[in-house]
């Protein structure tokens, strides 16, 4: 990463944990996981809590839907690390790689339910333009999305607009496909806490 403290500034217990993870998973600890261990009282503790709640807390959206939203928002932000990480996680959650690829290639023609398509479109516009009209939101609601589902989707969008920015600014190292697969497995088993 682009700051030395994020590469080397961890205490002995955290270093030992990283070494153990490397040993067990046979992959380096992803930078997205490392960063929440750096001065966790400033950022990591609360960021993990919020992201976990958005991605794994009670919701009208499945885990796969939310991982796809994370991948989609990351694609809009052009955040290479997060696109790869959450594409792998969404594919695994849905057990449907082609559908995930289709959504990320061309949302409008992808074989996806209309409520999810309308929601992804709305999250993309919000992320790109920074604002939405009531009309934009009415279109989502009329596609069959409940106000609660809109709120849940916004929380996912917000969590990944944070993570995408940190990934790009601090320069998270893009992993091998096997590394991202291992990360996806972990995120589906353990979540973000």
């Amino acid at each position, binding site marked *: 990463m682009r700051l030395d403290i994020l590469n080397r*500034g961890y205490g002995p217990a955290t270093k030992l944990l990283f070494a153990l993870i490397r040993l067990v998973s046979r992959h380096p600890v992803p930078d997205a996981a490392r960063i929440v261990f750096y001065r966790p009282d400033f950022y990591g503790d609360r960021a993990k809590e919020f992201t976990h709640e958005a991605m794994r807390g009670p919701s009208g959206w499945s885990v796969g839907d939310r991982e796809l939203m994370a991948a989609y928002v990351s694609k809009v932000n052009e955040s290479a690390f997060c696109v790869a990480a959450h594409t792998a996680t969404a594919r695994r959650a849905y057990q449907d790689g082609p559908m995930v690829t289709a959504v990320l290639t061309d949302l409008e023609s992808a074989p996806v339910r209309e409520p999810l398509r309308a929601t992804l479109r709305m999250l993309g516009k919000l992320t790109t333009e920074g604002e939405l009209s009531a009309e934009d939101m009415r279109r989502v609601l009329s596609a069959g999305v409940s106000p609660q589902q809109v709120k849940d989707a916004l929380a996912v969008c917000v969590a990944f607009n944070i993570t995408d920015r940190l990934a790009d600014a601090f320069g998270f190292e893009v992993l091998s496909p096997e590394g991202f697969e291992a990360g996806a497995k972990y995120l589906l088993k353990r979540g973000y806490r």
Partner: protein
Amino acid sequence: MPDEDKKRAAHRALVDRILGGEGRASAEQRARAFANEGLSTPLDTLVGKVATRPARVTAADLAAAKASGLSEDQLFELVICAAVGQSTRLYEAGLAALAEATAGGEAG
């Protein structure tokens, strides 16, 4: 507590901590990075990119901010504030549009 409140409360706790808690950068500087305004060069360039064009941030942007006298711990905090600040504005914009779209019906 309704679930959406739990999500927003968790987000609020993050915002409150990075802006109001102890830090290596001053609370004033963290608030400016969060708002993406009122910062001097070259920090304004870095924070502006984090907020609006994150994929364009380069190692040189961080190096320039460091060369201006900021420590890595201060930069760690200020980049986080910039990222959380922009994302918070997106959250508020989305929720406001929802509230408007559902006004008179189910509260947004």
